[in-house]
C-alpha cells in the first residue's frame, strides 16, 4: 500500500470510513480467507472466523498504532480468531485440538467445497501430524506463499527460526508421504 497511514486515517474518519472499509475488504478478504480456511478446514467455519476477524478489525482500527503493517496486523487477528475458534470447539466437544483437526480431516473427502485428489488429501493428512506452530509455518509458506519477513511480523518469530521450522516441516511431510 502506497500510503498506509493515510489509508488508516480514511478507515477511522466517519465520512470516508465506509468506502475505505470496502477497499480493505476487497484487498484482504481472499488472502485472509485462505489463511483461515487452511486452519479450520471447512468453508462454513472459515466464513464465521473471517466475519469475526473483519468485525474485530473494524472495531479496533482506532487503536491501530501503526507499529506493524496493516496487513500483518490483520493476519495476526485472523490467526488468533481461528485458534480461538478451534479451542472453543475442542472445549465444547470435550476433545483435544488434534482430535478436532482429525475430525475435520475425515470430513474433507465428502466436503462439497473440497475437490482435492488423492495427493492433496494425503498432504493435508501429513501436515496434521506436525506440531501446531510448524503446521502454521508450513501452510503460510507453502500454500499462501508469504515471505519470511511477512511471516516474521505476523507470528512475531525471527526469520531464522521460521526458516528452520519450515525446513523441518518439509522433511517430516516428505517422510510421511514416502512411507504412507
Amino acid at each position, binding site marked *: 500500500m502506497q500510503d498506509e497511514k493515510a489509508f488508516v486515517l480514511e478507515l477511522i474518519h466517519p465520512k470516508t470510513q465506509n468506502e475505505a472499509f470496502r477497499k480493505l*475488504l476487497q484487498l484482504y*478478504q*481472499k488472502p485472509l*480467507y485462505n489463511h483461515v480456511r*487452511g486452519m479450520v478446514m471447512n*468453508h462454513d467455519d472459515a466464513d464465521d472466523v473471517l466475519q469475526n476477524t473483519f468485525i474485530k478489525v473494524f472495531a479496533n482500527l482506532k487503536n491501530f498504532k501503526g507499529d506493524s503493517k496493516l496487513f500483518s496486523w490483520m493476519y495476526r487477528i485472523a490467526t488468533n480468531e481461528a485458534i480461538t475458534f478451534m479451542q472453543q470447539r475442542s472445549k465444547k466437544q470435550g476433545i483435544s485440538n488434534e482430535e478436532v483437526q482429525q475430525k475435520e480431516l475425515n470430513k474433507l473427502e465428502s466436503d462439497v467445497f473440497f475437490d482435492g485428489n488423492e495427493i492433496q*488429501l494425503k498432504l493435508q493428512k501429513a501436515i496434521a501430524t506436525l506440531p501446531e506452530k510448524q503446521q502454521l509455518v508450513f501452510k503460510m509458506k507453502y500454500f499462501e506463499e508469504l515471505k519470511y519477513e511477512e511471516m516474521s511480523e505476523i507470528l512475531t518469530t525471527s526469520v531464522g527460526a521460521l526458516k528452520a521450522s519450515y525446513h523441518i516441516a518439509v522433511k517430516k511431510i516428505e517422510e510421511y508421504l514416502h512411507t504412507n
Partner: protein
Amino acid sequence: MNMKNFDLENNDKITTGFKTPENYFEQFEAKMMQQIAAEQPVEKEVKVVSLFYKKQVWMSSIAALLLLAIAIPVYFNMASESNLDATTIESYLAQQSVGTTELTKHLTDEDVIALETSLGVSTSESDEIEAYLSETENLDYILNE
C-alpha cells in the same frame, strides 16, 4: 506423481483443493458492509445513554444539596434543644407515669441508706419486719395485699 521420490520443493506445487461457493466474496463483502453500517448507530445510542447518565448525576447532586439544606438547620435545632433544664425534666416526669421499679432500679446502696435514715427506718427495724413476716402464716395473703 511418484510418491517414492517425493520432493515438495522441486515438484509441481500441490494446491489445497479448497473451494468456495460461487460469488462467495461478493456476498461476503456486501454482508460485511451491512454489518458495519448496523454497528454505527449503536455508537450514537451509547452517547444518549451517557447524556442521561450525566443528567442522573445532576439530579442526585441537587437531591443531596436539598437534603443537606434541610438536615443542617434541623440538626442545630435539635442540638440546642438537648440542653434540658431541671424544670423540663420535672414536668416530663410529672406527665409520664414512671413506676417505682423504674426509679429504684437506678438507686445505689448509698442512696438506699440515705433514704432509710431520712425516713427514720433503721436496718435493724426492717430486719424485724422481715422476720415477723416470714413467721406469719398468712404470708401469701399479706404479700398479695
